[in-house]
């Protein structure tokens, strides 16, 4: 695993973009400007970025209700995302989907999904299409620890195994499904073993360490492209905010998140690692921080300026023809 300077800068920029995006959405939500249910990805950046960096334009990802990070990782336009989250014209889904349904099929991003376990079957289908049409494409199914107990996810692992589909199953274990701990909800407490039970090779990685995720993802995607069939990665980290905005997280011991942020933050970790190793200089990272801050600020400004959808849009886009 050799990351070029460009790769390192790209990795940091994307993770930073996700973090900044989410923290800003958090602020805006608090002021009441963002409608609906919003689930933030902050704390889980390594997964979206470490994995999507292995992908290209012919590849696909299916996402979850916590999809902002996946969108950014797969290259969705942040202004279009922000407008969507605000429910405005110019949003990626023209304001009809919102945070839980952001999608950009032109980028191979098959959509955030309001249904837990909704994504894996779609990833299997995208992989099947890629295989059928010999595009060399791979599909990644991102799903949470809670979704790992949903029948749709489990069936998809079996289907991918039976068809030897080019699918990477990524279990994003942030410790909780809403208020429920993943240690409790996953019978057997051994996701890698469960994947093996479907004939899928898997690996567990520390999600605080970008390089660990990147390495595991790289190896898995290479195996998949070589035709080794579906692979599985269990990424462990924690979520920084409530399940959705408004959740007080009383089910977590006080300080749990602060501890994580203080000692295990993936951005701090990355910065320390690359600067101490002399791979990147702090100034380059500071520069990215500023650029990103500006970019997100512009996105929010644009979103607030954007006009809402028009009444006539209510009944369009239901069918191609009807």
């Amino acid at each position, binding site marked *: 695993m050799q990351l070029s300077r460009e790769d390192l800068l790209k990795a940091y920029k994307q993770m930073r973009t996700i973090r900044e995006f989410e923290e800003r959405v958090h602020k805006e939500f608090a002021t009441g400007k963002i409608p609906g249910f919003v689930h933030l990805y902050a704390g889980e950046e390594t997964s979206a970025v470490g994995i999507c960096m292995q992908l290209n334009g012919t590849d696909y990802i299916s996402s979850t209700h916590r999809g902002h990070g996946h969108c950014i990782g797969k290259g969705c336009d942040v202004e279009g995302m922000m407008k969507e989250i605000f429910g405005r014209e110019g949003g990626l889904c023209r304001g009809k989907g919102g945070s839980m349904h952001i999608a950009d099929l032109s980028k191979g991003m098959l959509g955030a999904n309001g249904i837990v*376990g909704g994504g894996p079957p779609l990833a299997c289908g995208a992989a099947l299409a890629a295989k059928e049409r010999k595009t060399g494409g791979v599909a990644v199914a991102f799903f949470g620890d809670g979704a790992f107990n949903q029948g749709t996810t489990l069936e998809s692992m079996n289907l991918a195994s039976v068809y030897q589909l080019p699918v990477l199953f990524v279990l994003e274990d942030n410790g909780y499904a809403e208020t429920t701990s993943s240690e409790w909800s996953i019978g057997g407490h051994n996701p890698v073993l469960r994947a093996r039970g479907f004939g899928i090779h898997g690996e567990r990685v520390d999600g605080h360490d970008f390089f660990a995720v990147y390495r595991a993802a790289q190896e898995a995607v290479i195996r998949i492209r070589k035709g080794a069939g579906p692979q599985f990665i269990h990424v462990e980290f924690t979520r920084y905010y409530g399940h959705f905005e408004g959740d007080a997280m009383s089910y977590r011991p006080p300080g749990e998140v602060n501890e994580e942020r203080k000692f295990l933050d993936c951005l701090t970790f990355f910065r320390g690692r690359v600067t101490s190793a002399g791979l990147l200089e702090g100034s380059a990272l500071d520069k990215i921080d500023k650029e990103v801050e500006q970019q997100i600020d512009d996105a929010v400004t644009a979103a607030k300026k954007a006009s809402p959808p028009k009444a006539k849009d209510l009944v369009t886009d239901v069918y191609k023809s009807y």
Partner: protein
Amino acid sequence: MAKKSFRQALNEAMRQEMERDANVIVMGEDIAGGMGAKGEQDAWGDVLGASKGLLPKFGRERVYDTPISESAFIGAAAGAAINGLRPIAQLMFVDFFGVCGDQIINQMAKFRYMFGGKATTPVVIRTLFGAGLRAAGQHSQCLYPIFTHIPGLKVVIPSSPYEAKGLMIQSIRDDDPVIFFEHKAMYDDEEDVPDEPYTLPLGKARIVREGADATIVAIGRMVKFSMQAAQELEKAGIKCTVIDPRTTSPLDTDAILSGTKKTGRLVVVDEASPRCNMATDISALVAQNAFKELRAPIKMVTPPHTPVPFAPELEDIYVPSPAMIQAAVTEVVRYR
């Protein structure tokens, strides 16, 4: 008797029934909350807090947080019900019925018939429905027409806190599977709700108000909107009867037919998608059985045939409004 919210009314109903009958249990995702976590237990009391306080009172023996495995735990509720328990299982949002529908429509609904009358399945599926929270296409549907369509299920849709408590207690005591619909945008509605347990019958409509000019039949949150419309219409001298069926299965056809015959003019208000919904069900009932008495075409007030949009500006015009109901009533009343 104090003012209580829809949420509190549901909470009180479940608590009182659990006190009365040790076989009543509750199940659901984060129904208490904090399972396996190191912080506060009973952290949520379900996603909108209606079950809060049940865990401290009844313990994990009777309050089951579940993994996100709707087929397994909704089916388990059915399996427990045919073996002596009276589970109340929450399907958090009715939109999720697609991942566990079989256990509802092919299993619990059909046991009694398929087994020749030898099964009794006293299970209540609580579920959130309806638009208004900017929750978009997969968290805002009504879907009760689907359950109403399935023989073997009872479908209960309370239209206020008072109704919610009485109908929930009755649903828990009922021996057939009940799908209990709770409109998420009504959780904070308040009204006087008696402290003691009471029941409201399933299959008996409520005549919310009487008026000689037109009859409005409305469901769930639409009852409230219809009452607002009726009050406005009153000012214009148009007097409406408003009927709340309370349950769509069984449906109180007598009340709907006689209520319609009195005025000869019917408006049906349904928040569900327009095709094969309760508006069509009730319109058809009346068209077949009150033809002579009808003095104007039946008007249906429903959303358009589209998913529920996210943008507030769109969702607000998606949901039938008091103004739309008013316009519909005016139209049928003016009809000559």
